[in-house]
């Protein structure tokens, strides 16, 4: 074991910081800092992907042959950390972190050639069509069916919580291609053109005023059979692969680090009774606890990245990241609101740009509550906290 800081990584960090500083457009950065919505606009996400792709860094985590950077996990960690610290727009997660890895691992040559360059270059936003109204935690019970007729699949059913579907040109879906076998065995992984006849998208009004989540209705949608990824009936395996591939990113460590810095900015700026919020011992204590927990999470992430041998299944360590990571996202956003006090109760219409700040309503006010409200979802999506704990108890203790 050798845990002291590595000077080589520090010079890598310097290089990355300078690189981002050079290529990230100032207006994009400003929008990311002040937006009154949870995610960057699709336009900013795509434009940013194009810029990074121009420098060969859009999909740094992919294998080199598909456009990756061949960096160590520690270098990737630093890269992501610096992106968030610099207020760069986040990636189109569906394409870069979900579909991409599935395609280059299991997809045919034709599918790879067709879609990987599109993903790298941010040419489309990808919808993830897994969950259904009756199939959330129990995803394997999904009912959307795809029937092979000639060289096409005919897809019927309904998806829900499909983030960004209203803006997505393409989506990757889990569909049932075989009803006769065990539920997990009858699921396939299908790429669907969202502009196909029979696809209807309804945006779902959310707790925070946004409507990013969608319902997707599929009514006799014809999908070319060659858009089925890998083998029929293997969709469940690919989906699990994809979720596991997401392991360390599901900690949201980079996001949380940036948001905790923002919470500190707020606490330094806001005043109550002539005192800065950060000078209030009650807040000091909370900041100290959250920061300490976040440092612990960071080390836990690094340990998973390094595949440390712990004597427990590695997936158990990965569950820690998801459980604690999602809780910390919520603690940090709520800390931001508490530091704002009653000001956090003001409702702002969601939008890509914040209203003009004033002396009483600093630039950091709009957006905080918009984001904190939807961050209640962190312990729900990608496997709820309860289901994660069920899994962890099984993995770690064999219960």
């Amino acid at each position, binding site marked *: 074991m050798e845990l002291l800081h590595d000077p080589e990584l520090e010079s890598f960090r310097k290089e990355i910081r300078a690189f981002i500083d050079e290529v990230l457009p100032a207006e994009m950065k400003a929008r990311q800092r002040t937006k009154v919505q949870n995610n960057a606009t699709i336009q900013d996400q795509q434009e940013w992907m194009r810029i990074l792709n121009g420098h060969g860094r859009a999909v740094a985590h992919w294998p080199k042959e598909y456009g990756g950077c061949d960096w160590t996990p520690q270098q990737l960690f630093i890269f992501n950390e610096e992106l968030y610290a610099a207020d760069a727009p986040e990636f189109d997660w569906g394409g870069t972190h979900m579909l991409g890895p599935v395609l280059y691992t299991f997809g045919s040559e034709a599918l790879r050639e067709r879609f990987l360059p599109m993903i790298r270059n941010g040419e489309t936003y990808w919808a993830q069509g897994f969950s259904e109204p009756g199939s959330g935690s129990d995803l394997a019970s999904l009912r959307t069916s795809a029937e092979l007729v000639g060289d096409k699949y005919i897809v019927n059913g309904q998806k829900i919580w499909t983030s960004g579907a209203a803006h997505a040109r393409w989506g990757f879906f889990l569909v049932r291609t075989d009803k006769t076998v065990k539920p997990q065995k009858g699921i396939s992984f299908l790429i669907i053109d969202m502009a196909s006849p029979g696809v209807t998208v309804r945006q779902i009004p959310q707790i925070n005023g946004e409507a990013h989540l969608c319902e997707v209705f599929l009514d006799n949608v014809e999908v070319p059979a060659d858009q089925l990824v890998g083998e029929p009936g293997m969709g469940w395996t690919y989906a699990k692969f994809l979720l596991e591939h997401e392991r360390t990113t599901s900690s949201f460590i980079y996001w949380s680090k940036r948001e905790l810095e923002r919470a500190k900015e707020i606490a330094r700026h806001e005043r109550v009774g002539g005192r800065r919020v950060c000078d209030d011992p009650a807040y000091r204590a909370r900041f100290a606890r959250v920061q300490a927990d976040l440092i612990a999470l960071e080390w836990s992430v690094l340990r998973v990245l390094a595949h440390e041998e712990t004597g427990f299944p590695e997936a158990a360590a990965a569950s820690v990241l998801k459980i604690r990571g999602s809780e910390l996202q919520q603690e940090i956003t709520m800390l931001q609101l508490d530091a704002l006090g*009653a000001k956090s109760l*003001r409702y702002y219409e969601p939008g890509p740009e914040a209203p003009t700040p004033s002396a009483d309503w600093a630039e950091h006010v709009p957006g905080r509550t918009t984001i904190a409200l939807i961050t209640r979802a962190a312990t729900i*999506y990608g496997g709820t906290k*309860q289901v994660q704990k069920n899994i962890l108890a099984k993995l770690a203790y064999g219960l």
Partner: protein
Amino acid sequence: MDFAKSDIQTMLLDSAERLLADSSGVEYWRERRHDPLGFDEGRWAQFAELGWLALPLPEAAGGLDGTIEDVALLNIALGKSLATEPYVSSVVLASQILRQAADRGRADALMGEIASGTLRVALAHQEPGADPLSTEAVVTVARRTADGFVLTGAKLMAADAPSAAQLILSARIEDEDGVALFLVPADADGLTVDAYPLIDGTRAADIRLTNVALSADALLIGSNRGEAVLDEAIHRAGVALMAQAVGAMEACIRICGDYARERKQFGAAIGSFQAIQHILADMFVATHQARSMLYHAIANSNRPAAERAAALSAARIVIGEAGQLVSRSGIQVHGGYGLTDEYAVSHYFRRLMSLEKQYGDLVRHTERFGDSLFA
């Protein structure tokens, strides 16, 4: 001490049940956002017809002289149904201040108008950067003139101000110690009202006063009594708001229980999973404790100011934390559905968050209660 409801309280709750149950629910709440003031003026008139707006007011003003318990019970019902009406501002806070005004005749006339639903009054006290629990943190100044006063200053996030025709403003009169309270028409020259919605659908406003000229009778409460009057009125408002929080929690846990029975995953109701049962049990414990603390705050409401304040702050700790637990767990139990505007639980979440942070948040009340223990 008697936990049974009096006849008048039973009547009150019956009428509340009838009116509020008919007009509440997700669709009703979502429609209210399109009302210019965030609530339905027609229903406000019904509040008046039912005597709710007269409840705590003195008989001389056409009021019912109801007790703080009566007011709390009605507010529990308002909280259950997430009413956005400015009940607490006008009927609890403003009337409590008006009752203490020197000019009784005028105050009674104003309260009479409140009782009949024709006048709404909001308090504008909190100033930018001020401690929300302080009655003395007032910089707004009132300069005496030949025929009255001229006010200059700024107020932040005055609850329900956008629907009020008259505002009660705290200000320091030049060369006097203490804080005085003025009644100011919301459309006075030199006064601007920057209105906006809060996340729970209620409205607030920032108020700016630039040389607002007032006649001498605008002074409701002089500098010698302003802080004490404010303190008691804000205390009563705090009790009413905590009653709303208790009502909101009690409704929320039922909604979550129903959902856990109906929602199926893995071939079983999610309520059959112990993880969910334990969450629901914790929500029940917290809600029960919250109502207990409401009673504690009410029971101490006639004590000397420091004791009264300590009891309310203690209540706000337990109720505030319960509100967080109930609202956060409520969403968790609902899964994705909890994040939508189309399910009631997300509305309860927003209201409970708002109630926790008005007139001093959990952190401030924790500090105040802590200080009281070692005073």
